[in-house]
């Protein structure tokens, strides 16, 4: 008991130090700790070790005793927590959450060396604007399928489930709905030949084939299911999804990290971008995948009931 008390004072001193340190904006994370009684090189090494665990997203704290111990220390010891946060920040990482369920959930800052770039992700996407959009939309659609209702994204205990073919048909459904609406309004959605950039986004997806036979029985990479499959495989490598089966092109469930990433990072970033474009999607917090207004029932028979956007 007495030992603990001593240690605690030692770390609270360190906490003050770390505070001052981060305000000076000169984080030198892995440099040996300066001569101060409370911060030892061993502490810095432990903090860096914890961040390195966070960089292995598929590693579960429950499976690694050292990881679990460092997490416990992070949560119980504010000074150590600050040190670990500083290490992460110095490496260009953003700490989303540190908890036994998600581990040290870190993600890459925009210009970090850890960031994923579209050009590295898919070679065609670098040159072909349609492919670039399709890959981006696939990631957005996977998230929307994984967390269909706002509550799902907010509820920490929620585990989303999705399949590759399910994501594709979900987007196709939405596109079909738009196509029908355009048809009802007598709008000609065929894009002008000399301005492909003005083509409506949904058309790009519905135009691309769902799947295709290849010579070596692999998935056709350029098809929409191929693009979605690439996205989920990549997210699985990022520790965001776990593969649960092979049905419907591969079925997956979400991890806590994915929820954090979508909720705290990607969703708001995309929303900001959308607002910049002058589109203000109003939400009162209820689901927008709702029944159609009264009198619109006929659409149900004509076509699938989803998704309706009120």
């Amino acid at each position, binding site marked *: 008991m007495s030992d603990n008390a001593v240690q605690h004072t030692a770390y609270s001193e360190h906490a003050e130090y770390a505070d001052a340190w981060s305000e000076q904006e000169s984080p030198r994370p892995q440099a040996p700790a300066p001569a101060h009684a409370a911060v030892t090189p061993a502490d810095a090494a432990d903090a860096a070790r914890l961040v390195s665990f966070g960089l292995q997203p598929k590693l579960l704290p429950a499976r690694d005793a050292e990881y679990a111990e460092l997490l416990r220390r992070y949560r119980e010891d504010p000074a150590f927590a600050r040190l670990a946060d500083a290490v992460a920040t110095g490496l260009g990482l953003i700490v989303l959450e540190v908890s036994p369920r998600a581990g040290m959930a870190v993600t890459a800052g925009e210009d970090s060396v850890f960031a994923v770039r579209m050009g590295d992700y898919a070679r065609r996407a670098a040159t072909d604007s349609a492919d670039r959009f399709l890959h981006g939309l696939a*990631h957005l659609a996977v998230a929307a399928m994984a967390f269909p209702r706002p509550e799902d994204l907010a509820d920490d205990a929620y585990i989303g489930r999705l399949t590759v073919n399910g994501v594709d048909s979900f987007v196709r459904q939405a596109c079909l709905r738009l196509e029908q609406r355009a048809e009802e309004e007598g709008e000609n959605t065929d894009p002008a030949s000399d301005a492909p950039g003005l083509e409506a986004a949904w058309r790009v997806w519905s135009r691309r*084939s769902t799947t295709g036979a290849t010579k070596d029985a692999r998935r056709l990479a350029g098809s929409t299911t191929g693009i979605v499959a690439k996205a989920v495989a990549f997210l699985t490598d990022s520790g965001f999804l776990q593969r649960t089966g092979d049905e419907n092109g591969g079925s997956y469930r979400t991890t806590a990290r994915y929820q954090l990433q979508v909720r705290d990072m990607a969703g708001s970033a995309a929303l900001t971008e959308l607002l910049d474009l002058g589109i203000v999607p109003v939400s009162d917090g209820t689901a927008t995948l709702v029944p159609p207004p009264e009198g619109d029932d006929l659409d149900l028979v004509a076509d699938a009931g989803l998704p309706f956007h009120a």
Partner: protein
Amino acid sequence: MTSPASTDLAPPQLSAGPRPAQGPAADEGLARRLRALACTAPLHDLDARKANLAGEYTVYAMAEVALAAIDLVTLHMDFDTGADHDQVVARLLPRVAAQAPDRPAAEHERVARWVLENLINVGSVDRGFRAVYGTFGTDGVYVRRDYDFKLVEEVPGYGGAVCLRTTDEAVNVLVGALDTDVTSAQIAAEVKLEVLISRGRLADAQLAAEQARYRTVQYAETLRRTLDATRRNVRAVDWLNGVPDMIAEALDHVADRYRHENAILTNIRKARDEAEEPEHKRRAAELVDIVKDCIRRHTQLQSRLLEAGPLFRAEQDRQAFASPTRYTGLDLYGQLVAPLLPLPVERATRVTDAFFARGTGLRTPASVRLGDLVDLLLTPPVEREHLGAEMPEPELIATPDDSRFSERQLADALALLELEHDAPRRLSGLLADARAAGGEDLAYLVALLAVHAASPPVGTAYRQGEERLLFAVDDGTPLDDPGFGGADLIVGTALLDAVGMAADRTEAT
């Protein structure tokens, strides 16, 4: 000049007036027709391009094969599956073969595959077609537009296989103005069928029945999509009124059609059994098959409809009864996906890029050492193993030849039985010839073959398109022979109409 309507056709741009171009309303009809026309273009294109293929392929009517392929795929579209690639090719082969019977089978298959691949348009990244047409906009400006469409598309099937489905465009090209209310069109077709049957016009009746089947398939496809969507989100669908009404309606429809088609079935069966003319009989029999298929599809539809209720309750449990959370999150679909899709792709890409940049997580960059790099660059690429591990050479053990008769004896016996079609012979005479030529063994073989011919394999001969068939008939004359007893069969050869049968087979498929 001679046409009285020529003044109406004069381009409005030339006439003096404030309107520079035809209004968009008039243009819309034109655009629709242009699109319909574009859908037929790939078929014409096949015939135009066949000359460019390496080889002499002008004998094949490619458009005909293509339409037959679309027919086949449409008829094999069920709830979950589409048509199988190889199966479609296999079923196309008789038609292709009939177009050029003296060409090798490998070439027939090549043609069938070529047509199917061109219908999918395997070469393009979208696997579809694009036609360019022009319209006048509301502001009178002429705009060229791209119309993208598909005829046969590839969809994921059971167990990761790739199946084929025909698109709405293709069905429209195939059956014509199908762009009408499914239910009423089907009722109309069936009423027509009943009238036709009552008047005994079976040829027309078959056509109507086949059209009814296309509509049934299309109806099932529509419902499949509806139920699929229901599975995804309970709240998306009006389960209070809309869907239960729809399911009740659909069940009524199935019950109604089932009763209706059973009535038709009974009628045609009667027509089939009472028909005097063999041609009528055959057509009625085919009609029975088609109607049976319709009933099968309705039954399938019904079982899907019955699954919808339990599915809804399970999803309801999962989604609606979860405890509410303290705060609400972002609505990914409503606030991101839905507003994003109608945007021009250029602007939408900015949003998806932002999501991608922050939603993919992190990758630890590989740090490269020069030494490793040299090794890496000098390593020959690993060959992909297409064929898997090498098969061990099987050890073959020669089986002893324990045949009762030798090949030569069989040849002799078949030569003896090679009879003129108009000159059948008695078995006794054949046996005597056989004894003279090859002894008791040959006579035994001839007797066996003759007995076998008493029940000739008509079905097999029909399927394989054989031209001659050996048969034997018992007319009651006893056989007077030292080695064999029984009836002195009359053995003869029947000529079969191979070409006619081939045509029938293609029709039947």
